[in-house]
């Protein structure tokens, strides 16, 4: 039963979905504060290479994860500075971050006399519970079959959701994303809130990147993450800016990534390129139906998303 096609697909969906969960929740936090960050792809790649490098040097997975988180947050400051302090185009600044982060990641992977590229990771994340627990039919793999970061992703989703919708600071974030001028009038430091949440987004993107290089694809390649960063940006809309929904849609896309293989075992042959289009096609269709014009507001799109905020000088 635990080896059934369905179960294997679900497990793969969780595995492939987890890095996207991290990145999507991170982007939700940034966008809820009103800042669109198209730099997710670059931040993830930077986190991926830093995490891989640190683990490769020290043999410590958790040090790798920690430094990936720090790296993601650090590089996101570029975007926060451009979009919050300088108030220039968030779109161009985010793209710049993606190009820069991608370049830095590939460079680090290939620099030096004995480059990282092609090397297997010294350690990778493995399931934390004993095999006997994971062998329990049905619930075994679903509950006990994962590595530590999958459980961490569940915790982060729960915290992010509670934070945004059930705490006062969370209310503050949403206020800043909806109407920064009113938030400012209520005594909230808009810039600080936005800096913090762009950096949280960067930290989670870095974590998502590290999940690729330390769990999913355990050897360094120029781009171990594919286009996960871009998918995360699409999923924010599909998740209508809500962390729990981000978890489900990310798993759905994890499953889509796996479906190709599943179909092959069932002897259904669908070209991989057509399947690879699926997440992007779904995102567009969902946008057309759910998030066009005024309906985007009903869905939960922050009113001030992407609009630079000019505080009047006092």
């Amino acid at each position: 039963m635990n080896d059934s096609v369905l179960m294997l697909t679900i497990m793969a969906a969780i595995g492939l979905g987890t890095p996207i969960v991290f990145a999507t929740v991170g982007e939700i936090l940034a966008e809820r504060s009103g800042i669109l960050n198209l730099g997710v792809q670059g931040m993830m790649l930077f986190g991926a290479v830093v995490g891989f490098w640190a683990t490769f040097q020290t043999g410590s997975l958790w040090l790798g994860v920690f430094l990936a988180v720090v790296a993601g947050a650090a590089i996101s400051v570029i975007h926060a500075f451009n979009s919050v302090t300088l108030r220039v185009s968030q779109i161009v600044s985010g793209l710049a971050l993606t190009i820069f982060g991608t370049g830095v990641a590939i460079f680090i992977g290939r620099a030096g006399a004995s480059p990282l590229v092609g090397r297997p990771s010294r350690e990778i994340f493995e399931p934390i519970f004993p095999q006997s627990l994971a062998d329990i039919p049905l619930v075994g793999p679903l509950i006990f079959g994962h590595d530590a970061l999958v459980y961490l992703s569940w915790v982060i989703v729960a915290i992010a959701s509670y934070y945004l919708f059930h705490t006062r600071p969370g209310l503050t974030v949403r206020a800043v994303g909806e109407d920064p001028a009113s938030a400012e009038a209520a005594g909230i430091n808009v810039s600080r809130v936005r800096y913090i949440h762009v950096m949280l987004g960067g930290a989670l993107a870095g974590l998502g990147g590290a999940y690729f290089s330390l769990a999913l694809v355990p050897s360094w390649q120029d781009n171990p993450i594919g286009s996960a960063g871009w998918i995360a940006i699409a999923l924010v809309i599909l998740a209508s800016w809500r962390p729990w929904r981000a978890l489900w849609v990310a798993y759905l896309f994890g499953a889509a990534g796996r479906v190709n293989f599943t179909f092959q075992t069932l002897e259904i042959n669908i070209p991989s390129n057509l399947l690879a289009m699926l997440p992007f096609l779904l995102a567009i269709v969902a946008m057309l139906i759910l998030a066009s014009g005024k309906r985007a507001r009903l869905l939960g799109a922050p009113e001030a998303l992407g609009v630079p905020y000019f505080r009047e000088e006092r």
Partner: protein
Amino acid sequence: MSRRIIVEPRGLAPWWLKLLIPVASVIAALALGALFLMMTGNDWVEVYKKMADTAFGSGRGFAETLVSATPLILTGVAAAIAFKMLVWNIGGEGQLMFGAIAAAGVGIWLGGGTPPIIAITAVVLAGAIGGAFWASLSAVPKVYLGTNEIITTLMLNFIALNLMQYLVLGSFSPWRDPEATQFPQGRPIIDNARIPEFFHRLDWGLFIAIFVAVLAWFVISKTRSGFEYRIVGDSFNTARYAGIRVPKKILGTFLLSGASAGLAGSILVAGILGKMDPRSLDLGLGFTGIIVAALARLNPIAIIPVAILMGALNNAGPALQSIGVPTATVKILQGAILIFAVAGEFLIGNRFRRPRESVEEKPEPAKEASAA
């Protein structure tokens, strides 16, 4: 009264500042790159010398630089005309690829005896139409449903990429060369549809690209239509009061932007590639076009030299491997240039001054969004 400095938006920046910021962005990016190279144990002087030598050191090297610059002029124009109207078309990648699909389709379908002038025109125009069509998939929903074009153009990039790969690598479509059985390849277009070269791989596509940039500049700054376009770019409301049909203008601009990116695809197919080669068309030319447009501050004429600079970087990248430096150095430089260029917009859009003691300060209302 505090002695701090007041930052406030300004209307027109002096011309020298508009020139200084892009130049300073490039210098700052080169400095950052040098720091990065030093930190990783490389000799940055040697690296930059190698790059300059590869890109500009010989006639052939410079020709290769211009070959790399040709599609960037067109994707740069594509980004610039859209961004100027606050249409965030970041789908240059996809529009270029779909343009290439359309161009290669026509170039394969045409009979071998078609006269060159007709064949070339058909293939090149097919690319522009293909690019415009791909843009319309985002433009029509934007104008009629209010769908955010940032996400749709972005998503369509990946759909076009997978479609292009599917046609050549994943199926036996007419785009795939039936004779290449070992390694899938694009089917060559007819010889008569190839744009002639005039110097070492450099073909007349360069002049098509330059013509498009000059045409864009002329239309924007010298015609009635361009005048209306500029009003829409400044303020939707002003344009509406002036009786300009804003949605129609946005739709038209979006489609022309897609056409320019699609043209980049068809000129590659009819020029140096001669077929739809998925690997050579997936080099981030659309995104690099956005760097070009931002650094050129959305000015179509300035796009030409900036595209040559970016083409030089792209051309020089692979040569770095021979001295043991990763090609990605170029990507770092391009990313850094864009970061500095976009940050520099702050200096162009704002001015600084000390507060006067007695006068009550009332800054003018801020602009809603600044371009690039």
